[in-house]
């Protein structure tokens, strides 16, 4: 994997994620951009690199977002790690050239990541009420956001030729899982 190329792709997707969040506000259902990017890299990169990519990309998002003035570092990082681990685990079962596989993985991995995110911030909100976290509203919004992510997965599939070349990814067979 070309680390620099992967960073450029994730950097652009991170910019899109932040820009949509900034333009539409916090209470609008919006597709995720960064998680499908992590999914794409996790589909083809070696397991360790895929997990690190998910963790660091999520950490970057953590550092750039806050909720009601409270900076919460960690949930996105763990969500990104979970997302990458999930893809690494099941990618062996997927036809990775298929658009449906890209879309399914984007939606499923995003859903899993969002569930982890909601769980972590819910626990945090018990100790820090200033976050003003409405669990069910957030859960509903994020489940819908996962569904909205399908077009992003599709768009990445359309651009896969350029993106994979840039990130130095190839679709030759890889191990489906690592030790942990």
């Amino acid at each position, binding site marked *: 994997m070309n680390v620099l190329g992967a960073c450029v792709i994730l950097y652009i997707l991170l910019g899109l994620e932040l820009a949509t969040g900034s333009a539409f506000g916090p209470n609008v259902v919006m597709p995720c951009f960064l998680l499908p990017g992590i999914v794409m890299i996790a589909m083809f990169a070696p397991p*360790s690199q895929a997990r690190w990519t998910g963790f660091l990309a999520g950490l970057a998002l953590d550092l750039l977002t806050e909720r009601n003035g409270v900076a919460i570092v960690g949930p996105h990082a763990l969500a990104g790690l979970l997302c990458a681990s999930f893809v690494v685990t099941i990618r062996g079962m997927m036809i990775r050239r298929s658009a449906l596989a890209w879309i399914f993985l984007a939606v499923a991995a995003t859903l899993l990541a969002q569930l982890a995110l909601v769980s972590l911030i819910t626990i945090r909100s018990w100790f820090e009420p200033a976050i003003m976290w409405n669990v069910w509203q957030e859960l509903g919004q994020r489940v819908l956001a996962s569904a909205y992510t399908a077009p992003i997965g599709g768009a990445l599939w359309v651009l896969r030729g350029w993106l994979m070349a840039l990130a130095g990814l190839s679709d030759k067979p890889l191990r489906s899982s690592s030790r942990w």
Partner: protein
Amino acid sequence: MNWNRVLLVSAVAAGLVSVLPSRFTTAFGLRDGLRAGMVIVALPVQAPFTWIIRSARGSSGQSGADASSAALAQLEAQEWKKNYLTAMQENQSLREQINALGRTQQLNVSFITRETSPLPVLGLTDQLLLVRSAASLNIPTNAVAVADRVHLVGRVASIDGGGRVARVQPISGLAAGEIKGVILDSERFESPESTSVTSTTLTSARVRVSLKPTGRGTLSGLVFIERGSEPGAMRVQTGMVVRLLDESWAAADQMLILGRVIRAEEAPNGRTVVEIQPAIDPYRVSSLTIRFSSDAGAGGSGGPER
């Protein structure tokens, strides 16, 4: 180095940091530095996308961020409006007090005396008002309590708690006793609910009244004509202003407002009987000003000469 193990440790650390309250994690000064750095790094890609998205949306709708800003601005506007109206009300009240003070001083040149700032009324006990005071004020017993600077409320009956609480006997309380006043022909309250007085002149005709509390929050008594005045020169009417004119009260307190005439009837013997109501109900005031002469206050517990 086993990078998988490092990742595992990092994930555990991230899990802990994500659920721990901020007060436990602010010690990691690294976080704020990283945040600041990341904001700078992300800005070149975030700003153009934000601009493009906002431009694409154009005037089709207000963005969520804008909507929340607008809601915040609306709340602020309401807060400022409330503050403005409060200031206006305070301004109006102060103007009325200045006018009332001016009029009262016209009627009583020795009106100005030492007085406290408004003191909060804590409550009521045995028909006496409990007023928060301070030992340093040296309020004497028999000092005069007024509301809005010129409306007589009562007299300080006692000072308790080492000078921290003053008990005020309202003039309309049954234990207050007789009080004498004067009604000027040309003076009226602006309206039945108003505490403002209009058209005071020094040359108007006047009658004296001797009032006693009725137990209903009012005072009533007979009107009598001053020596040298022409009988029938003045007819007492409702809405007229009754002021203090009583030799048993200090010179500085003369011409304080006792209340408004709410009833004026002719008795079978031809004398006029009036009932007056304090313009400001002594039992409903929230703060009082205590007036007393400086020499009396300096003495501590001694009362003023009355």
